[in-house]
């Protein structure tokens, strides 16, 4: 298991060398930069924290001076750990997941695309909550047909204030509207505590649809879209990237993948949930 050693907060001094990769927000702002160091890789979340990952996989975190100290823990859990897991052969995607008796449904998408809100709403509609923000999949190894198992995570949602108020009735009046906050699930929401087989993947659009739209994707399209939602530590490590690409290709061929878009209006969520469940049920088992 990957552990993090926490250092004292420090000023984020200029790195001196250009980043070999960057994560951008949907608004086009640089969220994080990836730098090579003499001992490994430094991932800098601008204004938030530096993570130094040594060649042997050890992680040291230095929160940025003045940053909220809880951010480092969240970045470690929701970005660094999945990147390291994928680097070592795992399959972690940026998304949330829920389950019912027919299996698990994963919602993948960009930041602020509504993944967590949709998963939370599914929880309110009787489905079990599986995971939020990071969807970890483990593959069956002993069967002729590959199956993927969603791994449950701590029952907590990271939400913006408006979604928290809508889904959980959380007292979020004093929350910073531009930042996500952690909120516990309502006690009446079911929680999936054991791995559950993945039934379908939904790739969330940008919310421009005027009504609920669900389209079954070809495996090729699903693969190209899933690439945008995976966690890659070193885009220059061709051997690892090739292996990761192959794992995603298998997933795209083995599990039905849908493009999903809908108006980002809370009142539309029941209709979205019904449509998603119907699509998953009707989809061919590949």
């Amino acid at each position, binding site marked *: 298991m990957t552990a993090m050693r926490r250092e004292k907060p420090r000023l984020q001094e200029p790195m001196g060398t250009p980043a070999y990769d960057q994560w951008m927000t949907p608004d086009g702002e640089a969220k994080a930069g990836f730098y090579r160091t003499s001992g490994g890789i430094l991932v800098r979340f601008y204004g938030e924290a530096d993570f130094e990952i040594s060649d042997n996989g050890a992680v040291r975190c230095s929160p940025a001076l003045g940053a909220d100290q809880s951010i480092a823990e969240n970045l470690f859990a929701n970005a660094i750990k999945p990147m390291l897991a994928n680097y070592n052969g795992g399959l972690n995607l940026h998304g949330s997941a829920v389950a019912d008796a027919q299996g698990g449904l994963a919602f993948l998408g960009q930041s602020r695309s509504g993944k967590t809100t949709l998963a939370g709403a599914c929880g309110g509609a009787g489905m079990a909550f599986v995971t939020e923000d990071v969807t970890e999949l483990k593959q069956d190894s002993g069967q002729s047909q590959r199956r993927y198992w969603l791994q449950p995570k701590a029952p907590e949602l990271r939400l913006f204030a408006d979604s928290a108020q809508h889904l959980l009735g959380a007292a979020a009046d004093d929350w910073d509207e531009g930042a996500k906050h952690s909120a516990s699930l309502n006690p009446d929401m079911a929680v999936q505590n054991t791995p559950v087989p993945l039934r379908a993947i939904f790739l969330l659009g940008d919310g421009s649809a005027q009504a609920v739209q669900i389209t079954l994707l*070809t*495996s*090729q*399209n699903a*693969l*190209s879209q899933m*690439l945008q939602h995976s966690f890659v530590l070193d*885009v*220059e490590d*061709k051997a690892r*990237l*090739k292996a990761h*690409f*192959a794992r995603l*290709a298998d997933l*795209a*061929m083995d599990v039905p993948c849908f493009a999903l878009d809908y108006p980002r209006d809370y009142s539309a969520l029941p209709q979205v949930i019904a449509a998603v469940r119907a699509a998953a049920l009707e989809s061919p088992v590949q």
Partner: protein
Amino acid sequence: MNLHDTIAASDDVVSREVNGEAVLLDLASGQYFGLNAVGSAIWQILGDAPVTMAALCDEVEAEFDAPRDVIEADVSELIEELAMAGLITRKAA
């Protein structure tokens, strides 16, 4: 396009056949590309080893039922597109 030019898949490209069609990921740009069945067959040939245009057309001719001049025109067009996208390298004869 000279039939004696040598074509090779770029080292920066990883590919995977998905339901009979190739999906390519260009590591240098982060862009991905899809090829149809014919393009996928050509990519598979390129993936094995560098090959001349003439040899590439020979292999396509053996696999697909089409006149030679049509094959040469179609292969040439695809190679131009792949070159424009930076997915292959070309070495002039």
